[in-house]
């Protein structure tokens, strides 16, 4: 694929993520932090986010599977996930966490289970999308191109 096309694809793809609400402006902030001295900053941070989130989701599953759910343990996890997802711009994950927390407050086990599923769903979605995005970027870079700056015109 021609470089220009790849770049265009990347831009379109990224735009779609924003339009779908999978990502929000915080992601742009991350992208702006990336520069020559730190060319992989975004992917590094996102990778870190994935690792951490995997762990949290695991802990959450375990906690919710207990006979007696300890919401005092569940809530901090969700809170942290909310914080980290919002920090990288994973908007839908964050929103799912917000809902999750309200069920935690209500100590609604059933509701929490559903929320966990929802969070996981959103998480895997954004993970998938971002991995695709990074692949596109890598292809561009491998072809000698430059990753186009995100335009905020949409």
């Amino acid at each position, binding site marked *: 694929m021609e470089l220009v096309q790849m770049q265009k694809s990347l831009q379109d793809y990224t735009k779609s993520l924003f339009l779908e609400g999978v990502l929000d402006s915080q992601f742009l902030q991350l992208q702006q932090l990336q520069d020559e001295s730190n060319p992989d900053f975004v992917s590094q941070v996102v990778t870190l986010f994935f690792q951490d989130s995997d762990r949290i989701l695991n802990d959450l599953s375990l906690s919710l599977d207990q006979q007696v759910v300890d919401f005092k343990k569940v809530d901090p996890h969700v809170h942290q996930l909310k914080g*980290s997802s*919002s*920090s990288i711009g994973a908007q839908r994950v964050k929103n799912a966490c917000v809902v999750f927390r309200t069920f935690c407050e209500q100590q609604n086990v059933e509701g929490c289970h559903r929320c966990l599923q929802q969070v996981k769903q959103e998480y895997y979605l954004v993970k998938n999308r971002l991995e695709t995005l990074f692949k596109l970027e890598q292809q561009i870079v491998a072809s000698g191109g430059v990753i186009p700056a995100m335009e905020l015109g949409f």
Partner: protein
Amino acid sequence: MMNPLNGRGGGLGGSSSGKNQGGESVVEMFPSGLRVLVVDDDPTCLVILEKMLRTCLYEVTKCNRAEMALSLLRKNKHGFDIVISDVHMPDMDGFKLLEHVGLEMDLPVIMMSADDSKSVVLKGVTHGAVDYLIKPVRMEALKNIWQHVVRKRRIEWSMPTTTHSGSVEETTGERQQQQQQQQREAVSADDDDNNSSSVNEGNNNNNNWRSSSGSSSRKRKDEEGEEQGDEEDASNLKKPRVVWSVELHQQFVAAVNQLGVEKAVPKKILELMNVPGLTRENVASHLQKYRIYLRRLGGVSQHHQGSLNNSFMTGQDASFGSLPTLNAFDLQALGQLPAQSLAQLQASGLTRPAALVSKPGFPGGSTTIVDERSIFSFDNSKMNLLHGVPTGMEPRQLAGLQQQHGMTIQQQIAAVRAGHSLRRPQQQTFSRPQQSSSIRQPMLPNRVSEISGFSSGRSSSIPESSSRVLPTSYANLSTQQQSLAFSNFQQELPVNSFPLASAPGLLSLRKPHSSASEVNSSEAGFTTSSYDMLFSSRQNDWDLRSMLSSSHQDAFSNSEAYSSSRNNNNTSRNQQQQQQQQGMVSHHQVYGNGGGSSLKVKSETMAFHEQYSNQEDLMSALLKQEGIGPVDTEFDFDAYSIDDIPV
């Protein structure tokens, strides 16, 4: 990262003053090089923050554990200019870290969290955070954090130094400049900051109450001169920042105990300590923080209760050394007010000033200084008496008066005004319905309502915790009420109908054990220094803080924290002091649960604070901030409302 930057970042606050010793070049570079310590257990956020801060040209040290951060700070007291910390961390509550940093290092601390609920934000304010950022944090928010460093330094510099100081020459000049600037700053405080927190408005006022560290640091700064520990060059003018080592602190505590917490004045403490090079300002600021700690420990309860009871009931000089002015309500808070005392108090009712007086000294023998009903009904005549209470009266004076064998009516009334203790007893003995009605009282309600809220659930024995441990929903109310109460006092007892609703609610929500400790401390704090409270916005602030903190506690196993802390606190004052001495250590231990413990400490400290009055403005500001909700409407706050606090 932790190298002392020659004046870079650190202590450059007065960049505009340009008088930093040899800091010309630094001034130009400022704020780059600002040394930031960022603490967050979330690795993603930590990395992002680090990158953002580096992009702002700050020097960043990141840390994912609060304990590690503290030890870093301790090892390198002057190695950082500002700390940014997350609120929710597994090993230590962010607010506790905030307290420690404020007390030990006196650095500006910015709190941040994904939690944007007002209660938590307010907690940040009352704990002395210079700002509160909501995650996700944006670059713009971080770009301006240097202003907090500057502000703090300027405030400190502008404080007139009365004691020795090698840096007189230098600091004087700077100080003048700072003062001018500060004045200008104070005037234009609103424009001054980029940070959203309204707390920063009115530097002068804010300094006093915003955070103990702020005010104390301000004074201390004067004394100590430039706090550019890293700048060796300095001039001989630079006074080293006082480091409150364990020994020094113990000396301090011993002196305070000797004088009696309420009576402990910086000057006397200084004399007793007899430490060369220590200034009154150093002691004053430390005392302020210490009081906050004690308050939080809530240890006042047992000790105070006993004394309170005595003082109130018997009208004798409070046997307790610490809070002679604790009124019945406080006693209740402490949970030690005997039922009968309470009954007496209640019996006397508030309708008569006499009612305020406890048995021996008080007519009607009822310590319940304020009959809930009467209080609420706002007996004007009574209130007038209160009005008559010398507002200018120093807490000490009051304590003295009170101690003379029972409180005079005025005192009682004042105590009633303080609202703390009065309510309590009533709540305890009265049935719920009564309490609800009593809630009417605006002045006292702040405290009382809180207390009642808590005590209602319980038998008379528990009252103390009530005030503090308000369930979150009510916590806000209570704090508001409290603040309102204070503000009211300052405003000559405006009749406000505090959200009585909250009181009943509080009552039901009260958690027996947890609140007890908290309450005790808070109560104690209030009663003893009822006047202080009235006239000291700072106190109010602390009280509010404790209240706020308590309210927020329940999110985090408050009861556990409280009960555990209570146990600790239930020791005598000495013990408390010991705990205090153990300083942060015990603090941590006690408050393993985080939030809860921190609250307790606060209450303790606040209880003993009676030095600082004249903070009406701050009080108002603080109250306003907390005055959100129903109470707000009642009070004519003109400054901040919680909604205005940008986070």
